[in-house]
């Protein structure tokens, strides 16, 4: 039996084409986390007041989010956060709408703790005109997800002074029929 010929070289392919990252342990608070790796999302539920449904027409709606602090990272860097309605509200795994006309989008700059404002006029107008059974929930997520270590954390409703708010500008319905 002839001895086997010795190998002249060894080749080895890449075992993975990604990166290794140990995410920090999330802080034990109730803040709304958006972005990072793995990417976090936050779910917000909105109650549309009766006034907007039957007596007013929404002309502008702005979502106001107060960051718990500046997002650390490279100076001048930024990422996008957008608000996206869900098709049905089943909690964290709610399927998301793909109708981009209802998305709200804004840019978050790193190392800045400014209040974040997202224009959501189209979505809130639609909700105000819909029947009361319509799902009025949306998700905050980073775009694109998983492409940045940066994560922003907003105060939730448990921080009454800084909780998320919708600033809605509306026009009251004209009183027809009265001279």
């Amino acid at each position, binding site marked *: 039996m002839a001895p086997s010929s010795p190998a002249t070289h060894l080749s080895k392919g890449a075992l993975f084409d990604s990166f290794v990252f140990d995410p920090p342990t999330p802080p034990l608070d109730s803040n709304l986390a958006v972005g990072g790796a793995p990417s976090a999302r936050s779910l917000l539920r909105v109650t549309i007041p009766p006034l907007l449904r039957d007596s007013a027409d929404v*002309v502008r709606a702005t979502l106001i989010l107060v960051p718990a602090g500046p997002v650390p990272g490279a100076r001048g860097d930024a990422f996008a956060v957008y608000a996206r309605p869900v098709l049905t509200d089943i909690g964290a795994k709610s399927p998301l709408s793909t109708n981009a006309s209802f998305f709200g989008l804004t840019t978050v700059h790193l190392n800045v703790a400014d209040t974040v404002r997202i224009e959501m006029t189209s979505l809130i107008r639609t909700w105000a005109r819909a029947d009361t059974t319509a799902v009025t929930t949306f998700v905050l997520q980073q775009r694109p997800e998983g492409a940045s270590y940066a994560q922003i954390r907003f105060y939730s409703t448990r921080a009454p002074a800084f909780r998320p708010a919708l600033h809605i500008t*509306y026009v009251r319905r004209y009183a027809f*029929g009265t*001279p």
Partner: protein
Amino acid sequence: MTRVSISLAALAALALTAPARAQDSQFGIHGLGTPGRWESVRARATGGAFAPFDAFSPLLEAAVADVQRVSAGVTGAASWRSADFGTERATLRGSRFPAFLIGGPIVGHLVLAGGFSTYLDKSFGIVTHDTIVIRGNPEPVTDEITSDGAVSDLRLALAARVHSRLALGFALHGITGSTHVSATRRFDDSTTYRTAIVGNTIAYHGLGGSASALYDVNADLRLAAWVRSDTKLRADIGGQTVSTNDLPFAFGGGVRWRPGTDAAIAAAVAWRHWGVAGLNAHDTFDWSFGAELGSLTSPVRFGVRGGELAFGPGAKAPTEFGLSAGIGKQFSGGRGRLDFGLERLERKGAGLTERVWSVLLGLTVRP
């Protein structure tokens, strides 16, 4: 932010930028509307003075008593209007069929008539410009309010000549109609602020009754008197009543004298208590004087009228003065008659002056 209430004076001023929609008067925009004229072309060409004596004017049902055969009359009008407020001027035009009547004897001396006329014209379109503060910043806005429709007076009248000198008439009036209305607010910064549009259809309902008499003092002199009371005008949206306004009690009279076979002159007056009809409403007094000259087959008519408008800004009612003229022509041996009229009106009030030219066409047939 809520819709800014617009003062009436501003409405009158800014209405000058209104699109050319059918509307009878700017003065009626902030009231219930513009009251219609219950006159045929024949009566209107005499300034309205012959309306109490004209069977085809939906004013005085006793006049129907003289209808010997089934007859029908329809009135059409086209108007061109200019409205001046300070240095601003707008021109508008409109056309309509404000009156229709058909009637004839049913039993003995009893004559039944029915038809419709415009009770309140509620067609208008106004555009106003303003700047309001939203979120701390001034934002220019444009408001457009349009209304298209009218309230009609459906009349069912009974009349009879109870004596060779006296005719009496009674009528029930169904006041009904609808308007399609819309209000739009546009922001100059349309990227940030969306346009708000709301529209609706308003249905109107009301009832009324009237009575009248014609008395022949002699063969040449005829007197007329009428009284009418309407209840309330109810405005419904989607089956829900949104407003109720009182309607006026009205009365009037007239006199007609025939100095010869080819001449007749008449005068009429009317009081209407429109002041009960809500904001910007005023009681009105109207007078008219007119003449009809020539043969019955082709008379020439002219007249003058004056009075007040039921709705308008301020504590004082706007005033109206008008001149009119017209001709008539019978054809087919008297089975048909065409009436033409031309009317010039001037209305003044609260800094606004309206001038109106109206061309009138009437057709009466006796099959």
